[in-house]
């Protein structure tokens, strides 16, 4: 406990002091392509405040892509807090949200180890709470995301809350409500409903509750929020700005994702086809991943599968196929991976390679962007090469995690002794 509070304190100080001392930093970071996209940028949120202040529709001008309720809630800070304190309150809010997420991860980690211990019949020991907190709070990707005041922090918060409500509090209804809020804030999280429902089923085993009430509650809460937004703004414009912009990829801007390059190069009449293709691609791997990792009783009453891993793998997949990819997606997925310390993680083989590749990617991406945009001696291919490496990193992590999962399952189902478990090598036939 002492360690946890110490880690939290340092993590909080980093998030609180740096932007307080350098108030321009969040705005500057909001313009960095790696850190914030048009969808999550704090700068555009600020622009929306300005619009509201002057009684202009915040969705005019196509700058703001944040959902109305988020804009309204955040606007309260902008409107009611006096100027010198305003930034500090924002910093405090973002710090607070990150701390809560870290704590939620601790709860999830505790649940996971307990759950796996029960299911496997052998003790599963994960990382300490303090380490889980450190992996989130000291994750440079997450720190940078937080310092850029990216609104993706809120989506992450509501998503982890979904998991906590489901797994720790065992409350499916509230979990689905949170999922609705997450989807409202960031529409691509809708895909994660599938692994989340699978996870819900694996711990509740009540098909009716999970597969009927769950989705209905989710849809109801999402619809409620949409209707509330409609009543607040008295127009449907926000649907276009917040959701269609993501789905139809209307704001083509360079980022770490794989979409922008193809859509800038393409003739306009191909765009609808490829938007469809890319969207299908985003979605179509969710179900197979969920199915493969679905939990069931195997032969010999062995518990097989890992739905929580399915959630993480799908989150990684969504980060990979995100049209507006930023560091936050991968950062969040990476912070979830240490939870598997007791099961899958020890079988991961490429962690060093992945780490080095990620480091090189993060190092070169701003340099290549600078070469292209500022110096003019590089071109878009330079930056796109980083997008490709970014994709490869996702592929490597997914590959490594899934293979490690198979190894882990093999060891469990075949009763491999712990001594030989370390040296076991599986082959794909």
């Amino acid at each position, binding site marked *: 406990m002492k360690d946890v509070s110490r880690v939290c304190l340092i993590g909080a100080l980093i998030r609180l002091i740096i932007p307080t001392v350098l108030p321009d930093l969040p705005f500057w970071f909001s313009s960095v392509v790696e850190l914030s996209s048009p969808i999550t940028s704090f700068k555009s949120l600020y622009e929306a405040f300005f619009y509201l202040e002057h009684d202009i529709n915040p969705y005019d001008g196509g700058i703001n892509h944040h959902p109305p309720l988020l804009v309204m809630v955040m606007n309260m800070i902008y409107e009611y807090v006096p100027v010198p304190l305003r930034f500090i309150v924002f910093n405090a809010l973002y710090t607070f949200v990150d701390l809560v997420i870290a704590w939620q991860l601790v709860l999830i980690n505790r649940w996971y180890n307990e759950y796996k211990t029960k299911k496997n019949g052998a003790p599963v020991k994960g990382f300490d709470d303090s380490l889980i907190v450190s992996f989130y709070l000291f994750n440079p990707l997450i720190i940078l995301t937080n310092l850029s005041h990216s609104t993706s922090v809120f989506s992450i918060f509501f998503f982890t809350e979904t998991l906590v409500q489901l797994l720790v509090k065992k409350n499916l209804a509230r979990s689905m409500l949170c999922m609705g809020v997450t989807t409202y804030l960031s529409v691509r999280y809708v895909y994660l409903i599938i692994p989340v429902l699978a996870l819900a089923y694996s711990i509740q085993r009540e098909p009716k509750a999970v597969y009927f009430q769950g989705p209905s509650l989710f849809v109801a809460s999402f619809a409620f929020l949409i209707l509330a937004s409609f009543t607040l703004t008295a127009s449907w414009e926000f649907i276009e700005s917040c959701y269609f912009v993501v789905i139809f990829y209307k704001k083509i801007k360079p980022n770490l994702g794989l979409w922008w390059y193809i859509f800038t190069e393409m003739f306009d009449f191909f765009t609808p086809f490829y938007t469809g293709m890319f969207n299908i691609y985003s979605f179509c791997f969710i179900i197979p991943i969920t199915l493969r990792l679905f939990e069931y009783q195997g032969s010999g009453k062995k518990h097989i599968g890992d739905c929580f891993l399915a959630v993480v793998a799908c989150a990684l997949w969504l980060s990979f196929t995100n049209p507006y990819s930023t560091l936050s997606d991968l950062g969040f997925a990476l912070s979830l991976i240490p939870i598997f310390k007791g099961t899958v993680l020890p079988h991961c083989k490429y962690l060093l390679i992945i780490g080095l590749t990620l480091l090189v990617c993060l*190092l070169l991406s701003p340099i290549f962007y600078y*070469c292209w945009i500022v*110096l003019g*001696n590089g071109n878009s291919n330079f930056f796109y090469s980083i997008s490709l490496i970014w994709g490869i990193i996702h592929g490597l992590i997914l590959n490594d995690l899934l293979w490690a999962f198979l190894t882990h399952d093999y060891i469990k189902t075949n009763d491999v002794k712990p001594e030989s478990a370390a040296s076991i090598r599986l082959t*794909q036939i």
Partner: protein
Amino acid sequence: MALAETVLRKVHKLGLVPKLIKLIPLISFLFALASVSWLLVLPMDGFYRDTYISENALMPAQATSYFRESEWNHVRGFRTALQGIEDKAIPERNQIVEGWLQQYGLKTAYHKNNRGDDTLYAIMHAPRGEDTEAIVLTAPWSTSEGSYNVGGIATAVALLRYFKKMSIWSKNIILVLPEDGHVALRSWVEAYHTSLDETAGSIEAALVIEYGSASDHFDFYEVVYEGLNGQLPNLDLMNTINLIGYHENIGYSIQGTTRDELQKRTYSTRLRTLLKGILNLALVGLKKKTPGNEAFSGWQIQAVTVRAKGVDGPSDVTQFGRIIDSTFRSVNNLLEKFHQSFFFYLMLSPDNFVSIGTYLPAAVLLAVAYVLSSLGCLVINEVQAKFIAQSAYKILTIFIFVELGCLMLAKTLPLFVLGSDDDESVAALILYGFTVLTFASFVLSIKNQWIPKKYRMDKSLTFCLIALALFLISLLLTALLIVNFALAFLIGLAALPLTFIQPLVTTSNLKLLSESPKEKRKDLLSYLVNDGNSKRLKIGLCLLVSSPFFIIYIIGNLFVDESKGALILMKGLLTSWDELQCWTWFIVILGWFSAWSTVALSCIFGDFEIDSVESKMKKE
């Protein structure tokens, strides 16, 4: 996948992994060796490419230049007048030249740079076109060799007069007359993009001309093209100037090729041009005598310096003018910015080059060599992951302290130089300070028994620190290898002895283990030959020769100036950020020097004695 799996299984079966781990230092060194040999291979036939004009719109040497006999008279006239005012102060000279330019209908203005002499510039608005793009002709009052640029300015004014008569220009032409090609020009370029009132659109290309004699004839011309921070002008511009010179039948030189070797194309000339190019690119902005083209770096301007060499020879001054004229005509043809040809290249001769894809592996191999030896430090000494996690706090504290110290030095030292009246002696003082520091580390790392026991670090921590430092260098190389290949390669090569430290320790410890303890003899030679001492001496030497300040002495005295080279470089490093926005100083001090200091600290306070890991290795 199946093949990879088979190979992996084979590797596993044969137990290659432990064997390979033992060989890491050798592999790392082989990578470094491969990197150097890669560069040495490039000048061989079949590995380089011939230059070509990639942007067809340029059409170099296609238009007939009329800058001929009648214009010669104007050049002569201007030159005689300029010779008459050589003793006057620059503002007075500017006034006279301004009079001429105004007489020919050009708009003139001054840039007040707050450093003394203001910079005169004149704008000729394009008779055609949209008035949004410009080409710059720069003639500094003094050339980079320090002589009075009388021929250059006379030609430039005559050219402007001649340009004004033609109606073909679709890009504005700007003539700039800075005091020199250093701060004065750089501050003009910066002001042009930020604060000047009289501007003429975005600058597409810039030519700096140097003709430092009053002679009518010159021998051949030289082009200097290295920009700041590793930037180069588009290869098309270089080729254009080369081709124009070819059609005028003038010798064309790059990287200081002498008259006799202009036409020579052998392996050795190509290699020399290549190596000189790398060295010059790495040292851009550090020498006080800058050619001027680097002042345009960072604003998407393609700039070169054209310099007339020799006072007599086959070529005359109008030919020099025709090179400028023809180049301007070519650039004037452009509809887009320069984008077709290469921005990253190394020249092997005026007609041969290697592009980035071909030379980049050299730097990549070097970066990999550092990563490998960094890993080797940890793996060979069996530093456990647990240990790293436990002492991460310690490692990071030491590292952050070193880095903060370097940051402080990086920020404050230039202020001392810039703030003092006698900047030369302050720079000298700083250089001597660093030299003393380097030698102190050298001596202390040999004689580390002087350090009290309680300050010693244990062996694992020592190697963690060295590994971290080497890894930092490899990251530095990775970051630089595209943007500034020359600097990356030079640093990578110079700091290479740092990777020898770990293998030196391990091999000599193993050797010590295998030898039976001998009787100690007293004479110096045997003292040195004694393995325990020679190990320390070798480590100290590695440290010494990889220090940035040792390298400054070497490069400075060998390539810059025989007596004062190191001092010139040091002063250049300290002032180049403020004067030219050249970031070499920060790279050297925050990247290279900080890594070096970390290694030096671990050599001084670290423990290199025989431990259980090595005893185990011996037994195996």
